[in-house]
């Protein structure tokens, strides 16, 4: 066991170093991209103030922000503030970016977690069914459905679900994470869940295909092996074989794959949140981009990268656990 722990620690260490270099590179690239933008941040700030600004005041603001400094100097200034935990102030919401990210991430996390668990569950179950009936009609039908779903854009699926369940049937609310006109403290957990169902369902339909097809392949490999043939010869039924030989071999790879899919999950949540006007990070990032809110845009970009990296790191650690070579070392 000790050897395996040591190896895991090594994976953890190398990945942490890699993650730091990746985050640094993302910060440089995104900063360069944002400073390339033709949008004038001072003009945006003044527009946001809503009052007239004299040329002298404008000069003062420019001086305070250091607009005329070379980009490299500005970058280093921004990075040193960033390392002290100061992400700047959002132009759009007039509040510290860190606060907005923290608050909205909780909303997004609830949404993404639901979708993540749901898509994992649906995908794994369907994958098992497809693998069990490989080549027969349930497999063929489900495979076709999987291919069709992977061609459907998330936001359109969201629109259709919204149309059917909210507008026509009236079962679900049109948007937002809580009822309109109710105080924040009075919103119950059930109301929150109720508002979460449609966006979470939309988001999970996006990602279950991957896991289903992967599980199908893995299970097919297991069922074609000689030990399963022997188990059949002993008289084990198909469900016993799935329980005894299948699940043990395919569950961890599926979980690993699920952790490695954080990037698609986050990308999908941007679209789903915009369709359902759900107040999470995804709707904040598009609002930030459309209103030229540079600090918020940079903050969310870095945060989403961190989020994806953490997912990849967990996937890598899990790979370390399921890799048979490690188990040989530990024996």
């Amino acid at each position, binding site marked *: 066991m000790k050897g395996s722990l040591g190896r895991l620690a090594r994976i953890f260490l190398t990945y942490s170093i890699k993650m730091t270099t990746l985050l640094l590179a*993302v910060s440089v690239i995104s900063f360069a*991209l944002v400073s390339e933008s033709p949008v004038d941040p001072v003009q945006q700030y003044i527009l946001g103030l809503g009052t007239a600004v004299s040329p002298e005041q404008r000069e003062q603001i420019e001086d305070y922000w250091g607009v005329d400094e070379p980009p490299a100097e500005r970058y280093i200034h921004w990075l040193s503030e960033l390392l002290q935990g100061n992400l700047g102030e959002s132009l759009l919401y007039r509040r510290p970016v860190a606060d907005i990210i923290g608050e909205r991430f909780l909303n997004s996390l609830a949404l993404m977690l639901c979708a993540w668990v749901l898509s994992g569950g649906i995908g794994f179950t369907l994958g098992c069914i497809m693998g069990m009936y490989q080549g027969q009609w349930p497999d063929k039908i489900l495979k076709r459905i999987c291919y069709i779903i992977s061609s459907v*854009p998330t936001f359109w699926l969201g629109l259709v679900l919204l149309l059917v369940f909210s507008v*026509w049937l009236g079962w679900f609310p049109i948007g937002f994470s809580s009822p309109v006109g109710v105080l924040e403290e009075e919103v119950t957990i059930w109301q929150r869940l109720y508002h979460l169902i449609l966006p979470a369902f939309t988001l999970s339909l996006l990602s279950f295909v991957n896991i289903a097809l992967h599980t199908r392949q893995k299970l097919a490999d297991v069922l074609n092996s000689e030990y399963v043939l022997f188990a059949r010869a002993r008289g084990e039924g198909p469900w016993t074989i799935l329980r005894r030989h299948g699940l043990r071999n395919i569950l961890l790879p599926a979980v690993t794959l699920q952790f490695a899919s954080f*990037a698609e999950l986050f990308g999908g949540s*941007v679209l789903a949140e915009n369709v359902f006007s759900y107040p999470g990070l995804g709707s904040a990032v*598009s609002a930030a981009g459309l209103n030229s809110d540079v600090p918020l845009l940079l903050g969310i970009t870095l945060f989403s*990268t961190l989020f994806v990296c953490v997912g990849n790191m967990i996937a890598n650690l899990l790979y370390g656990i399921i890799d048979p070579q490690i188990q040989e070392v530990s024996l």
Partner: protein
Amino acid sequence: MRLGNRRKKLILLTVVMALIFIAIYAFGILIPEEEIAGSFLEARRPPSPSHPFGTDALGRDLLLRTFKGLSVSLTVGFAASAVSAVIAILVGIGAAAGARWVDGVMNWVIDLVMGVPHTILIILISFSAGRGLKGLLIGIAATHWCSLARLIRGEVLQLQSQPYIAVSRKLGKSSGWILVHHLLPHLLPQFFVGLILMLPHAILHEASISFLGFGLPPEQPAIGIILSESMGYLSAGLWWPALLPGLTLVLLVLLVDNLGEQLQKLLDPSSAQE
């Protein structure tokens, strides 16, 4: 004999799908701009024989707008995929055939691009280019090459261990000669199949980024724009601007995806004998 028939059927199917694809594209391109400009008298009409997809809030015919939008999406998607596929083949060959450190750097860059959610990266690039077509093209081209590059890298690594390449090398052929005469002919089918399989993703990304408001300008008849406009009328019961253009997009993506798979079956040497 039977096998030959199956292959013929496959080729026929591919040709028919390619023709449908070209027909949709040509139909979209040939629609003149004036046809789309509608009149307010005909605003918000549900689907009828004269307007099969109905009309939008400004009285524009949605069928024409949808197909015009599809042709725009296809152009953007094709251009971006082509650039992306070229990047992929350069990176793939560079990583596999170059020095060890080149491989390391390429892998790091791939991890970097995969590490940022694509939607966010395209939003950033589009923001940097001041929104519009240019940012959209660069954004989609910059995010779609990773998996094809990895595939090509693996392919080149495998090819390089083949005996005939070793023989070629022993005969004193230069790396450039081997690249042109041995590697590229092998990679060309991969390249085209990769390109066509990339196209649906590029089209879907184009639509979603335009939907978010970072892609094409609002006056352009793009699918993303139509759907984003339709959101405002959804609660008023206008179902056709949301449902029909999106469904057409899905069908087009399915068609392109299927076309890519048939081509893969036709071009892949391991299944060419079937």
